[in-house]
């Protein structure tokens, strides 16, 4: 039996933004779905806006960089136009909303370093498919809105199914990828770093402030490494888990080691070597970031039948950028091409054949005369 109180705590305290976003989104979509005597669209729009706001809390990074800004804009655009797509009564407008979804998705592709896919998607979807859809709509619905567009099939159950799925996925993602405790720890490490930067060059001899910082840092690092059962804080090894708990614990231990030396210096009235401390803390942060970025990923198999053109071998340590993300080759369009024509050659040929067959099939089907009533 699931523990109900724990469930409630999880839903309403720990993951409140997710719950709110899902419930509000459900309300919005349910209110907005077309039906003969619908609700005022303003209610739905209000609920949708609230859901978007809650969603922003779900994916908040806390920092405002060009990347996060662009990400927020594109994803908000994608979600809003997706909602429009499923709630618009007019299929032509729905098709335009779909074009918007595709365009914002393409923006996300760009952020994910996939320029070729961006271009291909824009051309294929926005350029070809949407236009064809518009043609069909023009052919089929010359007399305006049909009755089918004014009605929905089971709006409540459908939105319930969709948003239950979404909620489950979001909780799963949050549990797999979010690490609030580790983020807190790393943030504190950052704060200590700035404090140390303020200290280090002022005086070579230890003073009261230095002593205080060292004492606080020592306490923090001990808690970081061992955890605190009273406050329900797990140890560094558990925080890192499969994604590098051992490395993180080692880094923290190194930092503790360095700090112990400085404590010895302090007791002997020698100057504290803040550079070493800072370096150790930077190492902790680096390892911590890497752990955060690695959270929720599986270690790939050692042996894959793919060449080096599709990516580095799975057992090689990846080159990572400052944020801890793996680096892709700069000209990854070229690499994608090489990958396609080496590792995925048969798939490419098959895809081409499929396109040909689909062309023939589409012409054969669409060219047939109508058999039913005119």
């Amino acid at each position, binding site marked *: 039996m699931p523990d109900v109180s724990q469930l409630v705590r999880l839903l309403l305290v720990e993951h409140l933004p997710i719950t709110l976003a899902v419930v509000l989104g459900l309300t919005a979509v349910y209110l907005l779905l077309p039906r003969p005597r619908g609700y005022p669209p303003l209610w739905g729009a209000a609920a949708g806006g609230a859901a978007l706001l809650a969603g922003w809390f779900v994916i908040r990074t806390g920092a405002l960089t060009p990347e996060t800004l662009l990400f927020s804009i594109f994803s908000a655009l994608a979600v809003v136009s997706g909602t429009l797509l499923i709630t618009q009564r007019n299929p032509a407008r729905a098709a335009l909303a779909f074009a918007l979804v595709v365009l914002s998705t393409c923006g996300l592709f760009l952020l994910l370093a996939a320029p070729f896919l961006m271009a291909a998607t824009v051309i294929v979807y926005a350029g070809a498919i949407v236009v064809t859809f518009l043609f069909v709509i023009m052919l089929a619905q010359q007399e305006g809105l049909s009755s089918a567009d004014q009605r929905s099939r*089971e709006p409540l159950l459908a939105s319930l199914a969709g948003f*239950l*799925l979404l909620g489950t996925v979001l909780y799963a993602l949050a549990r797999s990828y979010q690490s609030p405790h580790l983020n807190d720890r790393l943030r504190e490490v950052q704060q200590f770093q700035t404090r140390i930067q303020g200290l280090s060059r002022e005086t070579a001899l230890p003073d009261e402030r230095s002593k205080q910082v060292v004492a606080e840092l020592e306490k923090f690092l001990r808690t970081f490494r061992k955890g605190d059962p009273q406050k329900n804080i797990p140890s560094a090894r558990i925080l890192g888990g499969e994604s590098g708990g051992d490395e993180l614990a080692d880094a923290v231990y190194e930092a503790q080691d360095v700090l112990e030396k400085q404590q010895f210096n302090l007791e002997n009235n020698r100057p504290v070597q803040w550079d070493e401390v800072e370096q150790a803390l930077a190492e902790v942060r680096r390892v911590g970031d890497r752990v955060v970025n690695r959270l929720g990923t599986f270690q790939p198999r050692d042996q894959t039948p793919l060449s080096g053109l599709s990516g580095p071998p799975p057992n090689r340590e990846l080159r990572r950028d400052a944020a801890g993300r793996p680096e892709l080759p700069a000209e990854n369009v070229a690499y994608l091409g090489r990958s396609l024509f080496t590792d995925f050659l048969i798939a490419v040929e098959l895809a081409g054949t499929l396109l040909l067959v689909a062309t023939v099939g589409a012409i054969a089907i669409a060219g047939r005369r109508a058999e039913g009533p005119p």
Partner: protein
Amino acid sequence: MSDPGPYLWLIPALPLAAAIVTGLLALTDSPLRRHAHWPCIVAAIASFVLSVLVLRAVAELSASDRSWITYRTLAEATGTQPPERAAPPGFRKTYYTWFETGQPRLGFDLPPDQVNVGITFRADTLTALMLVTVTFVGSLIVIYSAGYMHGDEGYARYFAEVALFIFAMTGLVLADNFLLLYAFWEGVGLCSYLLIGFWYSKPSAAAAARKAFLVTRLGDIGLILGIILIWAGFQKSPGVPLNALDYDTIFHYAAAQPHGLLVAACLLLFCGAVGKSAQFPLHVWLPDAMEGPTPVSALIHAATMVTAGVYLVARCTPLFEHAPEAQLIVAGIGGFTALLAALIALTQNDLKRVLAYSTVSQLGYMFLALGSGAVVAGMFHLFTHAFFKALLFLAAGSVMHAMGNVIDMRRFGGLRRVLPVTHWTFLCGAAALAAVPFVTSGFWSKDEILAGTFEASRQRQSDGWVYALLFIASLVTAGLTAFYTFRAYFLTFWGEEKIPHEAGEHAHESPLVMTGPLAVLAVGAIVAGFANPAPFAHPLDDFLEPSLELPPPPVEEGAALTERPARHEEVNWLKTGLLWLGSIAFTAAGIGGAWWLYERQRRLASQLAADLPGLYQLSLNKFYLDELYAVFVVAPMEALAQISRVIDYVVDGVVDLVGRLPELLGRLFRPMQNGLVQFYALAMALSLMVFLLALTLTRWF
């Protein structure tokens, strides 16, 4: 000495082939159906010829090889059992292994527990005699039928069924083991059923067929139980091979078996015989069986099939020999049936029914002989009876043919001028049945039965008085037989000429194809008796005794064993003469009474019936046996059936309810199948969600 093995199988196979050919012909509507009698006639005559060949071969063997007899005789003279198994002379051949069952028993020194039953035919003297009788009478009746059944709608079907019957009957007498015998036994029962109900659109015929089938079925249950008892009981004694179902093995070990087992087995086998041979209390089906075509009555219900029971008991003589109690019961039932049927036959007005009751009565005689130990006499009577009873039935059929299917003796009379051939042949048959002394076959055979019964009453110590009573009853029955036979004769052929209107303007003698067999059978009815005119000669005794394993006449000390022991019984002429005198007196009284009452003083008969209303009604209504059955057997069964029906209704209701349940459930869920694609997709998505939620909740909490 020629081995009949190569052609033995043809005797049943030819009629079977004819039955298949004719049966297939009956399914078509080709014009060939008018010639459907040919395959049957050809097959029957070919079988008869082959049977004669078998008879000759067996006779040769029997004459040349007497070692078995002498062997047995020596063993009995010295008071020892034969050291090793000796089979009576005869041919046996296994054509095919019907089935083999059983696995070796667990253990090392135990023989395998299995039954090995083959399609094995045997030819010994008893079989040969039966074969000749069956195929001879069968051939004549098939020829007769070609005229009698002419123009009938089911002409081809009739001949197919008759050929099938000849197949089953010859197979029955040829079978070498009990199981095969049982199979053919049921085969003749089936043919009997089919042929009684030949005019199945007639309700009385359908009812008679059903009655015959069900009543004989009662006896058949006894027969199969007896076979099972023999198989299961015999293998308990040491030395008996476990696959023993063939006659020789069973008979060889019979003496070593417990007495109770033997008596029980014999009585169960006799049950089958009672059913098939229409003995009291299962005789009720035979008179009704006359609903079938008259040649069928002649062939199946007078000459051959009904004698299967007699054949079975005769075949099992080595068993019955060791069970005197069973023999006593056989004799008692036979004698009682003979008397009862004769009494009933006195007053019947239907010519065929008179003959049917006379058949029952004569079969009773045969069982009386078998029960008295005079097995050869019983078989002899079977042999002669086949001739004269077939003759009588065919003659009755000829009368029917001429009278437009009227069979009530009160409605015709004085036919001797209209039907001269029928008249003379009927007279031959009636004389044989009434046992007119010295010139008819019936006299010789019946007299042997009387003599055998008399002997039994003198030889048996404890129950001799029963045989004495039976002897007196059989004498009375002989008189009654003569009386009712000639009553029928006089009523039909004498008196003023009466022809029913159904006969039309010109009642005429039957065609040659019918009168020919009549003439042949009439000759047979006269001369068949000379097969064994005891005490002047005993050819049939010598012929049959090896097969029956009867105790042979004693041999003198030191006689050469390789020679045939001579029959050196002194003929007691005084006893024989007295017996003859008694039987002749009763027969003469019967014939004379019939002549007096039905020829000279016709009114006297009806006056007698009016003076003795109780007795007359009792006889006319067959001692109310059918009514007794209806009250004591049929009514309780019907009540039971009603109760069962109620139970069945309840059980069926429960079963139906169980069957309804899924349907109701389905009705509940039927609206879900509304054909809307989106509804299906929604159901899938929601179920997926339920599944995912269950998964995550159990994983996380």
